[in-house]
């Protein structure tokens, strides 16, 4: 089993990765102590497993992973076929029913415009899942390619890229979103996704860079290089598989925060705008009526919180499975 270097996604999320290394001696001791035995329940007769099958072995037995994966599966299904569980249209509203509470056929009641809160909450999942998944894919690909190349080749390109990531970290995200998205009139998810990719890649790039730098010092990489492997072969066959774990962990956790960011931007009026259906829009629209119709605020908020929670818990579970140090 390849030995994992210590990494802390929680620190990475804050965008900090510089400076003093803490107590390396102790953490190495912990790693060594923990790795040889493998996870509990593995007898010595088991054949040695790769990091990935080891992680999968752990994940299948982790209730947190199973629950969050089921929630996410459900969200993906209803974002593709919302009509499976909601028959009406999210845009069919009846002002006469504005702010009315729960009644038969309309379990969540009506919002300030008399739209059915249940239908809108179901349809809102599509926006969140689309933004989360697509933005994460974009960020992960862009960030790991740039960071990976910079980490592998080093030199001037690396120095420039590191300064560029520093620049992006210095700009508050919500603020950047307000400035950039306030001019865009297109009412689709694409500008929001583009913005998140633009401001999100430095986070992944920093992780990927560090992880590639660690991986390329390994003996098997030196050996492959000595045998005459080309740079592309080194990167793709030897470094990438061993450096990608931290990227996956951070990206999964980031997915949840991107969903939250989309809702925040829509809440501020610069993400998606009506008539698009988004939890952020619905929460923002319900805020003024909160005294009379709190349900219109609570249901989309709850759906949003559960979605973000599911992705963050999934990321947590994946991290625990991929990082032997935490066992």
């Amino acid at each position, binding site marked *: 089993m390849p030995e994992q270097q210590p990494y*802390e996604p929680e620190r990475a999320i804050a965008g*900090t990765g510089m400076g*003093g290394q803490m107590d390396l001696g102790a953490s190495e001791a912990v790693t060594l102590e923990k790795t040889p035995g493998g996870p509990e329940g593995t007898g010595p007769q088991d054949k040695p497993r790769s990091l990935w099958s080891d992680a999968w072995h752990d994940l299948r037995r982790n209730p947190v992973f199973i629950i969050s994966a089921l929630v996410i599966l459900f969200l993906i299904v209803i974002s593709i076929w919302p009509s499976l569980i909601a028959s009406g249209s999210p845009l069919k509203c009846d002002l006469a029913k504005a702010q009315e509470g729960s009644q038969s056929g309309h379990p969540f009641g009506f919002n300030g415009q008399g739209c059915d809160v249940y239908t809108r909450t179901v349809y809102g999942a599509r926006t969140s899942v689309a933004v989360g998944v697509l933005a994460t894919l974009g960020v992960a690909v862009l960030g790991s390619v740039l960071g990976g190349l910079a980490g592998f080749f080093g030199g001037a390109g690396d120095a420039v890229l590191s300064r560029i990531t520093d*620049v992006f*970290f210095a700009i508050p995200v919500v603020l950047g979103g307000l400035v950039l998205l306030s001019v865009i009139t297109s009412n689709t998810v694409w500008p929001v996704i583009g913005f998140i990719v633009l401001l999100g890649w430095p986070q992944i790039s920093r992780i990927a860079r560090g992880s590639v730098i660690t991986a390329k010092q390994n003996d098997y990489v030196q050996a492959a290089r000595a045998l005459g492997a080309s740079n592309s072969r080194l990167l793709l066959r030897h470094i990438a598989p061993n450096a990608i774990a931290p990227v996956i962990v951070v990206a999964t956790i980031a997915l949840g925060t991107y969903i939250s960011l989309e*809702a*925040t931007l829509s809440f501020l009026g610069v993400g998606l705008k009506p008539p698009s259906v988004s939890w952020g829009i619905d929460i923002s629209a319900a*805020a003024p009526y909160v005294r009379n119709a709190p349900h219109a605020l609570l249901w989309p908020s709850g759906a949003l919180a559960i979605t973000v*929670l599911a992705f963050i818990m999934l990321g947590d579970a994946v991290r625990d499975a991929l990082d032997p140090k935490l066992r």
Partner: protein
Amino acid sequence: MGRYVVRRLLQMIPVFIGATLLIFLMVNVMGDPIAGLCGDRECDPATAAQLRHEFGLDQPVWQQYLTYMGNVFTGDFGTAFNGQPVTELMGTAFPVTIRLTIIAILFEIVVGIVLGVVTGLRRGRPVDTGVLLLTLVVISVPTFVTGLLLQLLLGVKWGWIDPAVSSEAPFRELIVPGLVLASVSLAYVTRLTRTSIAENRRSDYVRTAIAKGLPRHRVITRHLLRNSLIPVVTFIGTDIGALMGGAIVTERIFNIHGVGYQLYQGILRQNTQTVVGFVTVLVLVFLVANLVVDLLYAVLDPRIRYA
């Protein structure tokens, strides 16, 4: 130490230029500021041209940027389009946001670290699992939802606080907004402290400290905490900039007239100078906070020496 500080200060220059240039470019695609000035009507072309010349908007972007930065370093942040100097807006907005940030940081330090130490020392016990779940929930609920819910419960339903903060924004009224602003970071601080404490608790120096008979509280405060707080200090330090910039949402919910409010107004009204001015200051705060954090390392961890 002196040389290290100088080197770090020099490193800050490209980041500062890059970040301000980036925001300057972003603001420049924000649309025509003159159009915003005329309100809903179409501008008179002659007036527009004259205003454009007056504000220097007929020059190329890079030249506008240089002129602007030149002015900033002489303390002139320009005037908002309503004729009020931007520095005057800053004078009223920054004290409010700084108070809000102080409260948020205090919450992070006091509540976050205490919870982190308590759970880190009791890893796997019910109290640990409970707090861990709670932090996950807090991280998952976006700040604007937390804010609206607390406003609904404490302000509207129970009447403990005023739902909106008055324009003077004294500390007393900023406690709940400060908690909202801190909430997500608070959860991160708790988790970070917990991980760090749990990890260092198994280290040799803690075993040695216990073996030589030090009382438990002394082992924890003097040996364990001091070593475990290094990543936490990093997080809190870099969070200062993020909190001040992220206060937009909180300030909007509680109607606080701070930096976030001014920025939001500036962006809505396409008020270039206000937006760039405030962001420039925020970027500076972020960079200085990072520098201070790096210097604090040496204080917390004597093994780290800056040549």
